[in-house]
């Protein structure tokens, strides 16, 4: 008696450990794998919903929902067109990526990607998802100043440019998020989506002020707060001089004695960010760099930023 044998399941890169995934190939390949896995894991893109504001028609393609078929045109011209609405066609996303020196840090380089490397892969995956939805996606990187700007485009080929920019990205020096965030408004003249990827080791008030400004301009804002696991749980030698790679500020202490208090401080900082973001309608997600990309994408692309 023979039973049908199921084909071997392809591993879903979006759910694997990011460090392990990073060993599989280049940024582009990996990102595509991640996005494929991510998209295969969901039945509908959370942004595939059509808004009620009509924008234009386009030719019907297999897979399009029949409810969006314009029956009037079918009746008049015997051609299948589907109606496209504002959000679908006009979503313009700008990813703002922190490339300061602190982002290049990993508490365990043998096991965990640096925050910047994680951000590169995450942004590439997110951009691919957005571009596949025909959402125009751009990229701004910054450290102590705006370093690179890639205006949003909806062409899928634009993703190559974006990935190339990400791949060329290296950690800079300090962190000044406000100019980069304000720069977004030059490229998102209509309402759009701003994804701010940073370790948030910056001037919180200034950054929040800029984020509030973006919200004020009608943009949806998503903050992905990247943290290395070693930044969440303090470790290290019996006594050490901890030095900030950006500011060179240092403090000497015994990690064992301070781990508990430090953990509380981190928890409080995250809580304060979350509260501040929620207060202004900003979606906030704390992301540790050992979190699989799929998990982050699912949270980031959830229907309502306010629910984040």
């Amino acid at each position, binding site marked *: 008696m023979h039973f049908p044998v199921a084909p071997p399941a392809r591993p879903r890169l979006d759910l694997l450990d990011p460090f392990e995934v990073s060993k599989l190939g280049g940024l582009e390949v990996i990102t595509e794998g991640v996005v494929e896995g991510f998209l295969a894991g969901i039945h509908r893109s959370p942004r595939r919903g059509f808004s009620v504001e009509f924008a234009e028609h386009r030719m019907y393609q297999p897979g399009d929902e029949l409810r969006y078929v314009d029956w009037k045109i079918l009746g008049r011209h015997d051609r299948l067109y589907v109606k496209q609405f504002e959000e679908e066609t006009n979503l313009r996303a700008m990813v703002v990526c922190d490339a300061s020196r602190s982002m290049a840090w990993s508490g365990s380089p043998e096991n965990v990607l640096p925050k910047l490397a994680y951000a590169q892969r995450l942004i590439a995956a997110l951009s691919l998802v957005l571009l596949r939805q025909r959402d125009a996606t751009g990229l701004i990187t910054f450290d102590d100043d705006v370093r690179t700007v890639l205006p949003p485009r909806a062409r899928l080929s634009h993703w190559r440019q974006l990935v190339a920019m990400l791949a060329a990205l290296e950690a800079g020096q300090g962190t000044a998020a406000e100019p980069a965030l304000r720069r977004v408004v030059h490229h998102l003249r209509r309402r759009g989506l701003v994804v701010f990827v940073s370790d948030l080791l910056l001037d919180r008030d200034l950054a929040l002020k800029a984020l509030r400004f973006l919200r004020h301009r009608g943009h949806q804002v998503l903050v992905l707060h990247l943290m290395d696991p070693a930044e969440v749980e303090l470790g290290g030698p019996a006594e050490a001089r901890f030095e900030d*790679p950006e500011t060179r*500020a240092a*403090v000497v202490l015994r990690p064992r004695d301070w781990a508990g208090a*430090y953990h509380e401080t981190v928890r409080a900082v995250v809580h304060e960010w979350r509260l501040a973001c929620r207060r202004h309608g900003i979606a906030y997600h704390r992301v540790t760099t050992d979190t699989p990309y799929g998990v982050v994408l699912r949270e980031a692309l959830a229907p309502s930023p306010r629910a984040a």
Partner: protein
Amino acid sequence: MIDFLHPWALAGLAAAAIPVLLHLLARREPPTVSFPAVRYLVATTREHQRRLKLQHLLLLLLRTLLIVALVLAAAGPTLPRRGVPGHAPSALVLVVDNSPSSGVVVAGTPRLRELRAAARRVLARATPEDALWLLTADAVPRRGDRQTLLDQVDALPVSPRRMDLGAALGLAGEVLAAESRPGEIALLTDLQASAVSPADLAVPLLVGRPEEPPPANVGIARLETGPQPWGAGGGRLTVSLAGDSGGGTPVSARLGTRPPRQALAHVGGAAVLAIPGVPSGWWDAEAQLDPDELRLDDRRVGVVRVAPVARVSWDSAGRFAAAACEVLEANGRIARGGEVSLGRLARGSSIVQPPDDPAALGALNRALAARGTAWRFGPPMREAAATDSGPLVGRVRVLRRYQLQPTGSGRTGVLATVAGGAPWLVRSGNVVLLGSRLEPSWTDLPVSAGFMPFMDALVNRLARGEVSLADGAPGDPVTLPDLVSGVRQGERGWRVEGGGVFRPNEPGAYYLLAGEDTVGAITANIDPRESLLAAAGDAQVRRLWKDARVVSLADAGDAAFSSAARGDLRGPLLWAALLLALGEMALASLWRRQPR
């Protein structure tokens, strides 16, 4: 004032710097770790910094104090403390005055029994950590544990030796000077006024004294036997009394086993008892009183030498010696004859003076050598000197003399010396050599009061090979003459070396033997001051012994160790160290737990 039992241990206080040094060393160069979220660390530490600094300081303080407490405990600190039963480890010299006066019976109880009871009470308060000495009238400090000293106290007899309390306290102070522990002297005494003498004390002194006044007492202060030897006609014994009784006291004295003679004597006076003639020989003389509260001073012994007077030829003796011999003859102390030749070397016993003419010295020395004499006359000495203050000559000035030189390697037979130890009167066999002629131009002796007794002893005893009689107290050292080879007291006897020291331990007559011949005697009697039982007042005691605390014998036990009693701080310090250690552990664990 804090004292330390082991002050050298205080050097360990340097270890108190260890926590600080460790702290500094540990903080010197920690490794640098790159960490972007320093701002979170700063925020974390800012919140707890003040408390942590306080905890750090507190920990440092606790650890330093812990070491200091341990080091101080090792050094054994003590503090003055009164009115508490315990005491710190101390050094105590217990001085028990068991001198003859302690034998007095008061209200039916011997005084020494009270002293022993008080001593037991003092020792009962001693702890095993105390250093204890017992000092009695024999002036030998004995160290021992409490039980050993209790046994010694229980067996302590009345000593025949006098105890000078000032000297005893000085000795006790010397004993304590070598002791690192706080010291104290506890003196238990009848506080005889005659025994109290000044003492410079550096340690606390507790004086325990009886409350009852001493009884009236009369004792024999002296027993004099007069010039020796006695002749066939007998002699006289003179008995002097000491004490504080006003009435007449019957005194009896006797020679050997002859019937005693009795007389009535008064304190401060003397009774002379004529003793009839007895055969030649050495006789024990004894004087006695009726028994009273102090028995030891009711009897005194002496020695009488009875022998025919010497038959002396003094034709060439010189004017002063001849005059003395005539006086002695007139008093029956010598007779004319050829037994002893005074002034020149003759066939029998000879007392030889140096010749007036130096030219005759050589012939004299040759004659002495031919006689086998161990001494000869040396060169003349013209510088003035003085004799040695010995019992035979006393201290008289010598203006001229000849050196007396031994012909052999030894120097035996020296009877008197001049200052510096040069022989002045020597004997070899039956020849006696004088370094100076018995004339005022040579020595002051012929014109001194001691000349007649000297001449008496010279012809009657020294020329016959006998030595002087000595009188002393039990325990006093007596230098024996060269020729003495043994000492005998009653049935007991000791082999001795001539020139050595002999200590008669008990009252009595000790005969000096040269081979089988008795050549002299030592009499040992208790010090006559022991008969004076009057006690010194507390004021006198405090004046002579600064800061002395005078208590009754009954209170001595409680008072002992309290003047020098010092609270032992080791216990509290160890407890403090334990608490500090617990505090350190608690704080350290709290510190590790609290910031979490």
